[in-house]
């Protein structure tokens, strides 16, 4: 395991050899998980974030809600601004005042105070790990005259059946909390404040276990019953995958991008599949998440491993085989949520990555082409956002975008 010593400090180093790079990317991962696995037999630790919710800091290098351990409940809010009704200068000022207001709102809500003019401030008092994360679509950046090759629009992918209701919006607000009532109040307060100056595009809510039921780290059982979030980067590797570094930042220093895909999962058809078929399609066992190439959840996904008959342990078209990053640049941080509505259930796939063109896009191209899970899933919504950098005290979200020297 010499590769395990490669430290993922510089993207430029990682980009060199794919094999070494992947070893490096997951070095931290392997080490971190080993401790969790040793805990495997013991009684679950009671000290997960869900049990000790606190107030998450609003100010920082990055916005909260990205590297934050996923909270149990989430709501993704999309809004559009009617720029066509405004002169260009008015449009810019509208964006500025909205971002200032959202900065105040987020700060107040996350610290347990209601927003200004709140009619139910009591509902925000309980510590609940609430985070409010704000991003903007290319349409809004166009109004500001801000161009970045990292953004724009996601390409079309084979097999998707996109519903415009869950498509691109000018503004995205990701709200997450452990307590659904605290979350609801935050969502309601934010929507109320944006009324009249924006048009709500969508509100998609999701849920998961606050702690991974097996690994006790981030991750959850999705609605297929699978353990999701096992091979997700951690620590320094994750930070690098999401934000890049000083030499190679994302679209803006301290910012990142969010891909939000609404993926319907056909639970009724999945019911027809037996355990072996399910494990085969994913490449991991439903029981404990262990890869078919190993026995423990933390064992590596080894595509070279063979079974007793000399056949590949993990089928070439299994989800994990197709999704596994081929280069360090392909690594993304999945922070999705289960969703359930009257007519539809599935995954609000949310991934944060420095550059979607070198990560989400190639991975999703591979999956769209061949993925055993495709039989039961349909991509129904798609949007790409520029997530704003973290905010220093006395500043507001997106303030960088209004400076003279644009990229």
């Amino acid at each position, binding site marked *: 395991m010499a590769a395990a010593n490669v430290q993922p400090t510089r993207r430029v180093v990682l980009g060199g050899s794919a094999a070494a790079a992947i070893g490096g990317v997951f070095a931290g991962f392997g080490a971190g998980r080993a401790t969790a696995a040793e805990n495997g037999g013991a009684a679950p630790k009671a000290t997960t974030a869900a049990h000790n919710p606190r107030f998450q800091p609003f100010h920082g290098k990055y916005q909260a809600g990205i590297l934050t351990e996923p909270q149990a409940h989430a709501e993704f809010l999309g809004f559009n601004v009617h720029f066509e009704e405004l002169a260009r200068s008015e449009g810019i000022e*509208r964006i500025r005042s909205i971002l200032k207001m959202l*900065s105040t709102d987020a700060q107040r809500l996350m610290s347990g105070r209601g927003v*200004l*003019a709140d009619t139910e401030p009591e509902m925000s008092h309980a510590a609940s790990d609430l985070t409010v994360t704000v991003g903007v679509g290319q349409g809004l950046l166009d109004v500001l005259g801000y161009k970045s090759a990292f953004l724009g629009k996601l390409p079309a992918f084979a097999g998707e059946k996109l519903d415009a209701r869950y498509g691109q919006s000018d503004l995205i607000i990701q709200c997450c909390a452990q307590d659904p009532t605290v979350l609801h109040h935050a969502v309601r307060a934010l929507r109320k404040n*944006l009324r009249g100056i924006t048009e709500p595009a969508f509100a998609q809510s999701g849920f998961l276990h606050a702690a991974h039921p097996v690994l006790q780290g981030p991750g959850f059982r999705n609605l297929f019953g699978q353990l999701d979030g096992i091979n997700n980067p951690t620590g320094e590797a994750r930070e690098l995958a999401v934000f890049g570094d000083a030499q190679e930042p994302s679209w803006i220093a301290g910012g990142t991008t969010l891909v939000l895909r609404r993926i319907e999962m056909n639970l009724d058809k999945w019911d027809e599949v037996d355990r072996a078929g399910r494990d085969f399609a994913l490449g991991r066992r439903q029981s404990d998440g262990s890869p078919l190439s190993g026995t423990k959840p933390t064992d590596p996904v080894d595509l070279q491993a063979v079974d007793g008959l000399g056949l590949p342990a993990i089928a070439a078209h299994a989800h994990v085989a197709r999704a596994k990053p081929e280069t360090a640049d392909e690594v993304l941080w999945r922070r999705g949520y289960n969703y359930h509505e009257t007519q539809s259930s599935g995954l609000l796939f949310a991934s944060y990555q420095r550059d979607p063109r070198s990560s989400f896009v190639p991975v999703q191209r591979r999956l769209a082409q061949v993925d055993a899970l495709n039989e039961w899933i349909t991509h129904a919504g798609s949007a790409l956002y520029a997530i704003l950098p973290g905010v220093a005290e006395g500043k507001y979200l997106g303030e960088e975008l209004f400076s003279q020297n644009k990229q």
Partner: protein
Amino acid sequence: MKYFKLTAALAAATTLLLTGCAQEPSAVAPQSSTDQMQGTQAEDLRTNETWAKAAEHGMSAAFGELRNEGASTLELESVTDKTHGTVIEIHDTQGQGAEARMAQHEGALLIKPAEEVVLTPGGTHFMYMDLKTELVASQTSTLQLNFSDGSSAEVQFPIRNFSGANESYHGSPEEHADHEGH
């Protein structure tokens, strides 16, 4: 020299307020016309949690906490709005529930030393009488508070959507109708 000082103070106060630090009691920008050693009334004023109700036209209202940090009583005589072309009146609400009626405050609004007056929906508030331009949610309305010693302070009121604060007005029915709109 004096002009420079005042401008700097105004700029600082504006940044503080605009960047959403409404959490802290906000400093205000005193615009003193007298040059006394003792602080002016405007300088003794601290405001907190100030906001105004979004409205397209007609009437609206502004709220918040006005605190006296000085040693003598503040006498707020009038409030001026330079951007929305409307007269601002200081109003009290009398009675409760369906019976509540608003009436203009008699004389100056007094704030005793180390005390505060809280302007609330259903209580005392500043009333925009006839907006010529919209109070757009998320923007900020700047009002000038004029005191009996001739000093004045500019205070920022972030504009927010608010469905309440629809107490019927003592005046004409048309004004009442305008007030309901938003």
